[in-house]
C-alpha cells in the first residue's frame, strides 16, 4: 500500500475547488455588500437633500447581517442653522450671494428656512 502511495500522485484538484469555494463566497459577500451600501447612501442622500441642506459626510449607512434578520441603520445629521454651536457644513451655510451656477440653490435656501423650525437635529432609523 505504501509503495502504491509513493507512485500515486495526490489529487490536488479537490483542494483547488475547496479553496476557490471559500474564497469566492467571501469575495462575493464583500463586493456585493459594499456596492449596495454605497448605492443606498447615495440615493438616501439625494432624497434628503431635496428637503434639507446636508453634508456628504453627514450620513452613515450600516448593514448588520444576523442569522434571522438583518438590520439597516441609517443615520443622518441635519444641521440646525440657528444653533450657534452646531458646526455648519459648508454647503448648509445660507449663502448671501448664492453661486449662480447652481439652479437648485434657490430652492435649497428656501428649505433652509423651513429647517430652522426643526427641533431635532438628528434623525435615525433602525
Amino acid at each position, binding site marked *: 500500500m505504501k509503495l502504491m502511495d509513493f507512485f500515486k500522485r495526490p*489529487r*490536488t*484538484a479537490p483542494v*483547488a*475547488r475547496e*479553496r*476557490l*469555494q471559500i*474564497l*469566492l463566497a467571501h469575495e462575493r459577500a464583500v463586493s456585493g455588500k459594499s456596492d449596495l451600501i454605497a448605492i443606498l447612501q447615495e440615493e438616501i442622500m439625494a432624497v434628503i437633500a431635496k428637503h434639507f441642506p446636508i453634508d456628504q459626510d453627514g450620513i452613515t449607512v450600516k448593514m448588520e447581517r444576523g442569522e434571522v434578520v438583518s438590520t439597516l441603520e441609517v443615520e443622518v445629521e441635519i444641521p440646525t442653522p440657528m444653533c450657534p454651536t452646531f458646526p455648519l457644513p459648508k454647503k448648509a451655510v445660507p449663502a448671501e450671494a448664492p453661486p449662480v451656477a447652481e439652479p437648485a440653490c434657490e430652492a435649497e435656501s428656501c428649505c433652509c428656512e423651513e429647517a430652522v423650525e426643526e427641533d431635532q437635529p438628528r434623525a435615525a432609523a433602525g
Partner: protein
Amino acid sequence: MAKVMVVTSGKGGVGKTTSTAALGAALATTGKNVVLVDFDVGLRNLDLVMGAERRVVYDLINVVQGDAKLVQALIRDKRLPSLHLLPASQTRDKDALTDEGVEKVIGELKEKFDWVICDSPAGIERGATLAMRHADVAIVVTNPEVSSVRDSDRIIGLLDSKTEKAEKGERVQKHLLLTRFDAARAGRGEMLNVDDVLEILSIPLLGIIPESTEVLRASNLGSPVTLNNPTSAPARAYFDAAKRLNGEALEVKIPSDRRSLFGKLFGRRAA
C-alpha cells in the same frame, strides 16, 4: 437582429483572442455576417491571429475620433467574405476611446452585421468595461485553474453591474467557455473538472475546448483554428459552440484527437 457579444475573462492568456477568432470564423461559415472588434488598444493581437496584420490601415480609435470612416477601417477576411475585422490601435492608449464614440461605432456595426464580437483586453479596467458595455451576450473564457476561475467570477460580477443591459435592469446572457481543458488530467484529479468550474461560477456552459497543439499551429500561421484545421478537436469544439450560439441545443462533449499507436510514436510534428 444583430447581436453584440463580448469575449472576456479578467485574466490574460486564457484564450480570449484565440476564441474570438475561432468562434467568429465558425459563425461566418454558417453564412452569418460577422465582425470581430479588437478592444485591446495598445496590445492588439487579433489582427495577428487572423493573419491580417499587414492589412491594417485605420483602426477603432481612428473611427471613434472621426479620422476615418468605418468602412475604411474594416478588413474583410481573405478566406471568408462574410468575416470582418476592426483592429485596435497599437500606438494610442485606451483613454482615446470615449463612451459616446464606442456607442456610435457599435450602433453602426449592428446595422451592417449579424454578430458584433468584441475581443476584450485582460483586466477589469476601462478597456474591458468598454468592451462589455453594449453586449447582449458574453462569453467568459476560463481555464480550469484557480486564478482564472477567480478572475472569471469577478468579471461575471461586472457583467451583472457595469453593462448597459444591467443598468436597464436587464441581463446580459452569459456563457462559460472552458478552454485548455485536459480530460485525462482532470480524470486523475490533477485539474479542476468541468462540474467543479460550473458549480463555482454557475453560468451555463457553451463549450469545452480541449488543450491541443492545433491552437498554436493555427496562430503561428495567422488563421483561426476553425479554418486552419476544421476537423481537429478544438475546431470541432468551437464549431459546436457556434451552433449553440445560433440557438441549436447540442449536448456538450469534449472532442479529442484520437491517435493510433503509430500516430503516437511517429505523429509528433513541430507546431
